[in-house]
């Protein structure tokens, strides 16, 4: 069953913050975040493993709440280059074979 992402779309002004959520109805082992620009391949951002960790990558960070089976991606002081569609991919076990992707969140950052 695919994870549910929210919101589906968000428009920001440069410098504003955003939060993208990814929720699953089943137990997760890992959450993988990717950004995809139109017509391009998904680009890896970060992985979070169960255990409730939080990670950061420049002004983009994420958390994984194991109890809620939810991960959140935080974009702070957004830049024009952050525009794209953000997908979360969930892994159900440590074998980490297939990723089940959410429907994506389309983010547009305007000047």
């Amino acid at each position, binding site marked *: 069953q695919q994870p549910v992402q929210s919101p589906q779309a968000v428009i920001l002004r440069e410098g504003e913050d955003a939060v993208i959520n990814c929720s699953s109805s089943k137990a997760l082992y890992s959450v993988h975040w990717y950004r995809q620009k139109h017509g391009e391949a998904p680009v890896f951002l970060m*992985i979070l493993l169960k255990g409730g960790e939080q990670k950061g990558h420049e002004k983009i960070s994420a958390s994984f709440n194991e109890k809620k089976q939810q991960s959140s991606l935080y974009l702070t002081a957004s830049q024009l280059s952050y525009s794209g569609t953000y997908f979360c991919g969930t892994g159900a076990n440590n*074998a980490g074979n297939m990723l089940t992707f959410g429907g994506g969140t389309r983010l547009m950052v305007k000047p």
Partner: protein
Amino acid sequence: EPEVTQTPSHQVTQMGQEVILRCVPISNHLYFYWYRQILGQKVEFLVSFYNNEISEKSEIFDDQFSVERPDGSNFTLKIRSTKLEDSAMYFCASRRGGNSNQPQHFGDGTRLSIL
């Protein structure tokens, strides 16, 4: 930085024809994947491949699909008799090791158009 490469970038094929999509994973990676993305929709898992065999496949990956690693570098996806609904972007991905803390790196994709 090493990357996953896919060829061709765009393939146009008549319905019912066979098509082979090619991928060269990152050289020291051991796990390989195919995903597809229908225009405007989410990325969907097709199949994973390790140690010269399929380790997992989705319900999309039916008898019309097959994968092969014919030599030490290429990883191919074959669709035997294409249908209109096979039109999509097909992404190959590879991962270095067996743990979930290792990312899957995606190629730029092959856009498959079935006429």
